[in-house]
């Protein structure tokens, strides 16, 4: 049996505001094995940051049991803090201090011996490509540099479990790829990563397991492949020159959803060559000419939109 870095059961949190209690997390269960990347995926306001804040001891849950690396989150908060590193959505660097000073500050707070601390700071500056900027105040850094410094600070003291709350939000594509590379390296070193993101592509690229969070509930969980299989999103889109051909095609194929205005026919497919060949063969047999053809394979976008859409409808039904 693999040890779990995070084991959460029935995590709940609500906030009180002027409209009464607002439920942010409505019973979340999580099981994240050590040495894996787990991604919590959801739109803004789904409760991702709240989840990270609870798991990283920043705020307390209203209910539920959580164990982080075997420590109880409430009763052994300090032991949990000793195990984790957090890089939040907003850069957690001291902007008045230089990059190097920020890292040395972390080394001091991790109670590393002076020399070890210096060594570690030097290593991290090199690894995160910040050597040239080491002597400048962090306020002068670009967004990507601040994010790198932020993550470097999290790594001082070698945490075994790292929370990355939307680590690439607001970064340009290149910085995002750099960040992904760093995350992969970390996991290769045996670190567990808990990643929240609103980018499906990011979860698809990095995560071993993905959980979809919407309105404070997990609506699906699994590997990217498993999630994609959840929905029938794959199809071939055929475009015709006139309505006559469209109707004829629908008739001979015996399936598909026609769109008379766009003159297209959407034929379900699993994306295999066999199905496409069949479709083309049948149309060819009846001499029905196709203007354009395009393939659509399901991606996490489809999964996400389909599942959150369904959930939205359910929410509209009166529950109370």
């Amino acid at each position, binding site marked *: 049996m693999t040890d779990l870095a995070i084991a959460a059961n029935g995590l709940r949190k609500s906030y009180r505001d002027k409209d009464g209690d607002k439920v942010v997390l409505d019973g979340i269960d999580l099981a994240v094995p050590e040495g894996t990347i787990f991604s919590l995926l959801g739109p803004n306001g789904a409760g991702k940051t709240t989840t990270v804040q609870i798991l990283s001891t920043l705020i307390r849950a209203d209910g539920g049991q959580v164990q982080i690396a075997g420590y109880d989150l409430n009763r052994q908060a300090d032991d949990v803090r000793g195990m984790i590193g*957090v890089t939040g959505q907003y850069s957690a660097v*001291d902007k*008045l201090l230089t990059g190097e000073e920020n890292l040395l500050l972390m080394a001091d*707070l991790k*109670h590393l011996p002076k020399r070890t601390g210096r060594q570690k700071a030097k290593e991290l500056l090199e690894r995160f490509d910040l050597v040239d900027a080491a002597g400048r105040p962090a306020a002068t850094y670009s967004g990507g540099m601040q994010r790198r410094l932020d993550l470097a600070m999290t790594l001082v003291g070698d945490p075994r479990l790292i929370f990355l709350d939307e680590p690439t939000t607001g970064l340009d594509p290149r910085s995002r790829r750099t960040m992904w590379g760093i995350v992969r390296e970390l996991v290769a070193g045996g670190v567990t990563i808990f990643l929240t993101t609103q980018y499906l592509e990011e979860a698809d690229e990095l995560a071993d397991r993905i959980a979809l969070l919407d309105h404070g509930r997990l609506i699906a969980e699994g590997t990217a492949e498993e999630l994609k299989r959840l929905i029938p999103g794959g199809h071939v889109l055929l475009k015709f020159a006139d309505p006559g051909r469209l109707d004829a095609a629908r008739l001979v194929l015996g399936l598909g959803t026609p769109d008379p205005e766009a003159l297209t026919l959407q034929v379900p497919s699993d994306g295999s060559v066999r199905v496409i060949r069949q479709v083309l063969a049948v149309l060819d047999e009846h001499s029905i000419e196709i203007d354009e053809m395009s393939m659509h394979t399901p991606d996490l976008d489809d999964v996400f939109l389909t599942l959150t859409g369904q959930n939205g409808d359910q929410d509209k039904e009166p529950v109370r």
Partner: protein
Amino acid sequence: MSTLTLALRDSATMVRRQLKRLLRYPSMTVQLVVTPVIILVLFVYVFGGTLGAGLGGGRDVYVDYVVPGILLMAAATAATGTAVMVATDMTEGIIARFRTMRISRASVLTGHVVGSVIQQLLGMAVVIGVALAIGFRPNATPVEWLAATGLLTLLVVAVTWLAVALGMKSPTPEAASNAPMPLVFLPFLGSGFVPTDSMPAVLRWFAEYQPFTPIMETVRGLLLGTPIGNSAAIATAWCTGIATASYLWAKHTFDKA
């Protein structure tokens, strides 16, 4: 390592952080020193002749009278700076980072307080230097200087913890700059700029019982030899009380948030 050693070590780290920040952002310190110096010069040269006449002397008499009030005003002005600094810090992600680390929680606040106290004592030294240059003539013995410094330090510690608590309670740095504002006016509504017996009854009652008056009277007594009476005891009690209450308030706020 024991909890206490860790707490001290973390606090020392945080103090170093805060001192570096103050050095990196000197305009705040400069402003905190310049404001009371301007007020001092303004009161001595613009109002000093007339106000000094009211005290039975001239400008030279008024310089001596007004310095303790200016020193308290300096502390109050600095409190504004501290509150803004804390509020800004709290909105930055770095504090959230500290909270998720296995460190002594109070150390974050201790760093702010010790840093600000050092900053303010230096500021007060500058104010006294300028005062001496424009005619302030204290007749204190070294022991009296030491006692005055001790009381002012206690005051600064109290005001700083209060500023830290106010800074943390403020939703924004802008709000934080307003919160300690009343403190800046307390020297005016006390014996800082004119003797309280020249004020109308209600105001005089407030002036005599508010915390800054006994502190100013004690400092004045120590530096210039005016009667102190029971002011010293009341001043110490006020400072200790404000410091303790503010410390608990600040710590509670930090732990809860």
